[in-house]
C-alpha cells in the first residue's frame, strides 16, 4: 500500500483510539459520572436579594418587605400519578387551572420538560404553609420565595410608587439583573431608585436527584454567589405631615407639596384622590385593584396631580411678578396705582377688566395684601410696552426669561419620573394665536398673564418651589425625595445639593414678603392666620370654566423658614376658603406638632368638606 494511504489509516486509527480512550475514561475509570448521574439533574437556583426598605425623615418605616411564594415545577420530575385534586385544594386552584399551568407548549423554546418553569405565582404565606407540609408528596414541585412590598400605613401611594413584573425589554437590556417574572419598580421612588433598592442576585448550582431533592453543590460551589440585599433609603418625606395632609385633602381633588426651603427636601407630596398603596402590593388581587383604579376616568386616582397636572397659578403669581417688575424698574416698592374696582383698558372705557373692592394700593405690599388686579394689569402692560409698543414679544420674552430663573417652564429635576414641565407662554405662542390679526398682538391682549391667568401653567411642585424661593429670599435647591442611602456606595445626585440663584436684587424681597405676611393678618387669607407663627402666604383663585380652583402658597415662619407649601384644590372656589386653611393647618402641625384648640373647628371643617362624590379612597379594602 502507498505511504500516503498508510498515513491516512494511521490518522483514522489514532482518532478512533482517542474516542475509545475518552469513552473508557467517562465510563470506566472516572466514577464521578456514575455517582453524579444518580443525582440526575443540575439545577440553577436564583437567590433573590431582599429589596431595600424606605424610611421617612424621622426613621419611620414607609415600605417593608414580606414574602410570597412562586411554585415552580420540573415537568420530568413529576411522577405519572399524583393526587391532583388534593394539590389543587392545597393551592386553592381548580383542576382546569392545574392542567393549563402544567401543560406548556413544549415545542416553544421557552419551555423544556427538564427545566423548571413557574407553575403558580403569588401564593400567600398562609396558603403556602399548608401546602408546605404536603410538599414531599409532590416531587418536581418546589417553592421560590419572593419579596413583595408592604406599607404599615396607607399613605404616600404616588410618591412611593409600586412594583410590577419586568417587561420583555427590561429582560433584554439588563439580562444580568432581570429574568422573566422578576419585579421592578414601576413608578415613584421604587422606580427612580430601582438601582439602589434592588440589590444583587446570587446564583447557586445544585445537583438534584430524580425526586427533586438537593444532593450537593456543583463543583463544590465554585460558581455560586450569594445575594446582596439592596440599600435602604431614608426619604425626605415626613410621614406624620403627609398623613395629616392626606386626611385634610380627603374628598377634594387636587394636590399639596411641602418643601423644606433651606435644603429642597420634599416634606410632603400628595395628590388627591389617592389610594391605599397596599392595594397594589403584588398579591393576586392586584390585577382587579389596578383595573378599578385605572378605569376611574372621572377622578383618575393613579394620576399624580402634584407633579403631572398643569394649573394656572392665579394670584399667587403676583408675588414673583412683583419681584421681576421691581428688578426691571417698572415698579418701585412704594408705587401707587389707583384702583376703583375696574381697570379700563382703553381711555373711552369700552374695554374693562374687573377688580374687587379693596383700599387703594399705595405700594406693592398693599397690592399683594388685597390681591389687586388693576395694579398688575397696569404693571404687565407697562412691562411689555417698555420694550416697544409694537413689539410686545420682546417684553414678554424678557419676563419669561426671568420666570425660567424661578424654575418654571421646565422640570425641576425631582427624583420622580413623571414630573411635568408646566407651560410658559413665549411670544411665539401669541404670534401663532394672533397670526390672522392685522398688525399682530399687543400687550393688552395678554393682560391676564399679570394676575397668573391665561396661558401660563405651573405644576404644584413648581408653586411650592416658588414659596421656597421666597422663603430663601432668592435661591433654591432642586426639590428631591431622598435624603440618604444607607449603603455608602450610593450617593445623592450632586444636582440636589447645587444652589440655584434667581436674578433678583435682595432689596425687593422684603416688600413682597411683607405683603404676604399681611395676607394672613389683614388680607385675603385670614383663615390661614396662626397666633404664634408668622405665616407669609398668598391666596389665588384660579379662574376656570366651572367652579374656580382654590390656590394658596406660603412659607413659615417669616424668619428662618422651616416649611414652604403649595396647596391646589380643584373647583373649590376662593383661595382663602379651602386652600389657605389646609396649608396653614399643615404648617401649624409641622412646626408646632399640634393644632391650637381655637383652630380645631377649622380642622374639622376641612376634614369634613367633601367636594367630590366618593371617598378619596374609593376601593379601600
Amino acid at each position, binding site marked *: *500500500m*502507498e505511504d*500516503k*494511504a498508510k*498515513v*491516512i*489509516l494511521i490518522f*483514522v*486509527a489514532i*482518532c*478512533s483510539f*482517542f*474516542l*475509545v480512550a*475518552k*469513552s*473508557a475514561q*467517562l*465510563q*470506566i475509570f*472516572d466514577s*464521578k*459520572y*456514575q455517582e*453524579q*448521574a*444518580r443525582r*440526575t*439533574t*443540575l*439545577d*440553577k437556583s436564583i437567590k433573590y436579594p431582599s429589596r431595600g426598605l424606605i424610611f421617612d425623615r424621622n426613621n419611620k418605616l414607609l415600605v417593608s418587605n414580606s414574602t410570597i411564594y412562586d411554585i415552580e415545577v420540573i415537568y*420530568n420530575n413529576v411522577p*405519572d400519578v399524583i393526587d391532583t385534586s388534593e394539590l389543587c385544594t392545597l393551592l386553592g386552584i381548580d383542576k382546569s387551572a392545574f392542567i393549563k399551568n402544567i401543560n406548556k407548549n413544549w415545542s416553544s423554546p421557552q419551555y*423544556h*420538560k*427538564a*427545566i423548571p418553569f413557574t407553575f403558580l405565582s403569588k401564593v400567600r404565606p398562609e396558603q403556602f404553609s399548608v401546602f408546605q407540609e404536603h410538599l414531599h408528596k409532590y416531587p418536581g414541585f418546589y417553592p421560590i420565595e419572593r419579596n413583595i412590598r408592604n406599607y404599615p400605613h396607607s399613605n404616600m401611594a404616588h410618591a412611593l410608587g409600586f412594583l410590577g413584573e419586568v417587561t420583555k425589554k427590561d429582560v433584554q437590556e439588563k439580562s444580568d439583573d432581570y429574568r422573566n417574572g422578576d419585579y421592578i419598580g414601576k413608578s415613584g421612588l421604587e422606580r427612580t431608585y430601582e438601582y439602589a433598592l434592588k440589590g444583587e442576585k446570587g446564583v447557586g*448550582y445544585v445537583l438534584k436527584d*430524580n425526586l427533586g431533592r438537593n444532593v450537593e453543590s*456543583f463543583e463544590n460551589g465554585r*460558581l455560586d454567589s450569594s445575594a446582596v440585599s439592596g440599600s435602604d433609603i431614608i426619604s425626605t418625606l415626613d410621614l406624620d405631615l403627609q398623613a395629616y395632609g392626606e386626611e385634610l385633602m380627603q374628598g377634594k381633588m387636587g394636590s399639596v407639596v411641602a418643601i423644606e426651603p433651606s435644603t429642597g427636601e420634599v416634606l410632603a407630596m400628595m395628590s388627591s384622590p389617592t389610594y391605599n398603596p397596599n392595594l397594589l402590593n403584588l398579591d393576586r388581587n392586584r390585577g382587579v385593584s389596578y383595573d378599578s383604579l385605572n378605569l376611574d376616568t372621572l377622578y383618575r386616582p393613579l394620576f399624580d396631580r402634584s407633579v403631572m397636572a398643569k394649573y394656572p397659578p392665579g394670584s399667587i403669581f403676583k408675588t414673583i411678578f412683583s419681584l421681576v417688575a421691581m428688578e426691571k424698574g417698572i415698579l418701585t416698592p412704594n408705587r401707587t396705582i389707583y384702583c376703583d374696582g375696574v381697570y379700563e383698558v382703553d381711555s373711552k372705557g369700552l374695554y374693562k377688566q374687573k377688580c374687587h373692592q379693596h383700599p387703594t394700593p399705595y405700594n406693592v405690599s398693599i397690592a399683594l395684601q388685597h390681591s389687586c388686579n388693576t395694579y398688575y394689569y397696569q404693571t404687565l402692560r407697562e412691562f411689555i410696552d417698555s420694550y416697544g409698543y409694537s413689539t410686545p414679544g420682546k417684553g414678554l420674552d424678557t419676563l419669561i426669561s426671568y420666570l425660567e430663573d424661578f424654575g418654571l417652564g421646565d422640570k425641576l429635576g425631582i427624583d420622580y419620573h413623571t414630573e411635568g414641565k408646566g407651560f410658559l407662554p413665549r411670544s411665539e405662542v401669541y404670534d401663532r394665536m394672533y397670526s390672522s390679526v392685522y398688525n399682530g398682538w399687543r400687550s393688552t391682549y395678554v393682560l391676564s398673564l399679570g394676575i397668573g391667568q391665561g396661558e401660563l401653567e405651573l405644576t404644584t411642585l413648581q408653586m411650592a418651589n416658588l414659596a421656597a424661593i421666597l422663603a430663601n429670599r432668592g435661591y433654591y435647591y432642586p426639590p428631591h425625595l431622598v435624603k440618604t442611602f444607607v449603603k455608602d456606595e450610593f450617593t445623592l445626585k450632586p444636582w440636589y445639593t447645587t444652589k440655584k440663584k434667581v436674578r433678583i436684587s435682595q432689596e425687593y424681597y422684603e416688600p413682597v414678603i411683607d405683603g404676604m405676611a399681611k395676607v394672613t393678618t389683614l388680607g385675603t387669607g385670614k383663615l390661614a392666620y396662626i397666633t404664634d407663627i408668622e405665616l407669609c402666604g398668598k391666596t389665588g383663585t384660579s379662574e376656570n370654566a366651572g367652579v374656580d380652583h382654590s390656590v394658596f402658597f406660603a412659607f413659615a415662619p417669616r424668619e428662618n423658614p422651616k416649611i414652604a407649601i403649595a396647596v391646589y384644590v380643584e373647583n373649590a372656589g376662593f383661595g382663602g376658603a379651602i386652600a389657605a386653611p389646609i396649608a396653614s393647618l399643615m404648617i401649624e402641625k409641622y412646626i408646632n406638632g399640634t393644632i391650637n384648640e381655637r383652630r380645631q373647628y377649622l380642622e374639622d371643617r376641612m376634614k369634613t368638606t367633601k367636594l367630590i362624590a366618593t371617598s378619596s379612597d374609593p376601593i379601600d379594602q
Partner: protein
Amino acid sequence: MSQRSRISSKSIDWISLTVFLSLLIIGWLMLYASVYDSNVSYAYLDFDSIIGKQTIWLAIALVAFVVVYAIDWQFWNTFALPIYGVAIFLLIMVLIVGTEIKGATSWFTFGGVSFQPSEIAKFATALAVSGFLSSYKSDIRTKNSILISFGLILLPVFFILLQSDAGSAIIFVSFFMLFYRRGLSPLFYILGFSIAGIFIGSLIFGPRIIVLAAALLGLGILIYNIGDSWRSALIFFLISSISILLYFRDLYWYGIGIVAISTAVYSFMMFQERLFRTLTLVLPAVLISTMLAFGSTFAFESLLEPHQQDRIDVWLRPEKSDPRGARYNIIQSKLAIGSGGLQGKGFLKGDMTNLNYVPEQTTDFIFSTVGEEQGFIGSFGVIFLFTLLIIRTIIIAERAKNVFIQNYAYCVAGIFFVHFFINIGMALGIMPVIGIPLPFLSKGGSALLGFTIMVAVLLRMDMARFRA
C-alpha cells in the same frame, strides 16, 4: 484474477456490507430507545411518530440501496457534473422556497416529509471532485487544479453557509483526505493545523504564552542553524528558562524583550553568513503567529456569532459558560454516557434517556443513548464499527483499478470520518458542539438515504476490480 459474473455473491465486499447493515439495525434500535416512553404504545409504521417515520425511511433506504446497486458505476462518472449542477440548483432553490427549522433554512418540506438538499450536495460534490481529479489533465500539485478542486467544494459550502447551516458546511473539509492522497502539498496541512493550534491555544492559555512559544521556537531554529551544537543548545536552554520564568513572575514583556534581542543578534549573524532562506522563512512565521495569537480573541469576539462563541467556550473554556445554559447539553450528555459504566444499564433501561435529560438526544446526541444503555462495550462497538467501515473503504480505494473509483472511495471515507469523529467527539465533550448527525443512528430520513446511497455506489464500484 478470473472473470466473474457481474453481480455474484463473491464479488461484493461482505465486510463493508455487514458493517453497514449492522449500523442500520443499531441505529434503529438506539433511536427507538431514545424516544421510548413506557406510557405510550408505538405504532411502528405510524408516520406521525418519530420511530414510525424512521422505520418508513429505513425501508425506503433499503429499496434505494438495491436500486442504486443495480446501476453501473460508469453512470456516476459520466453524469458527475450534471448531478453536481442539480445539487447546486437545489441548494439555491432551498434558499428561496425552503423551510426554516432551528434557525437554518436548509429543508424542503412536502406534506410532512422534510428533505435536506445538502445531503445530496455531499454526494454530488464527491462525484464531481472525484471526476475532476481522475482526469489525466488534472494534477493536484498544480495551481490550476488546486483552484478548481477548491472551487468545486467552496461553491456548495457558500450556499450552505447562506442557509446558516455551519454544521453541514464543515463536513466539506472531508475532501482534504482525498487531496492528501492525491498529493496536495503538506504545506496546506501544516498551515491549517498550525493556525488551528494557535487559535485554540490562545483561547485556552491566552495569547501571551503562545507568542512566547512561537518566538522561542523561531529562535531555536535560528540557533540550530548557525551555532555549534552543545554551546548553542546551552544558550537556547538558558534564554528559554529565563523568559518562561519571567512569564510566571508577571514580567512577561522583559522575557519577550530578551527573546527578541537574542533573535535580532542571531538574525544578524545569519545575515552575515548569508543564510537568507532560513531567515525569510522563520521571521515572518513568528511574526504571523504573533498576529494570529493576539488576533484570535478579536476574531473570536467579532467574527463569531454569540451562540458560536458559546459553543467554543463550552469546548475550550468551560469555566466561562453557564452550566445551565450553553454547557448544559454537554454536561448532561457526559453524565448519561458516564453513567452507563462498563456494561450499560440495558436496552430501554437508561433512566436519563427515558426522562429526556439529554437535549437533542435523537439527533446530535444519539451517542449518549448508546453510552448510557450499552455502556463502554456498546460505545466501543459503535466506534469500532465506524472505524472498520472507514478502513474498509480505504482498502476498497487502494485496491481499485480506476482513479475515479479510488477518488470516490476516499471522499466517502472522509465524509464518514468527519461525521463520526465530530459527532461522537462532541457527545464525549472533546469536540465543540457542531450540529451534524451520526450516520445511520441520528434521526433524519434524508441523511439516512444519502449515506445509504453513498455506500451502495461504493460497493457497486468496488465490483469493478474483478473486470480486466
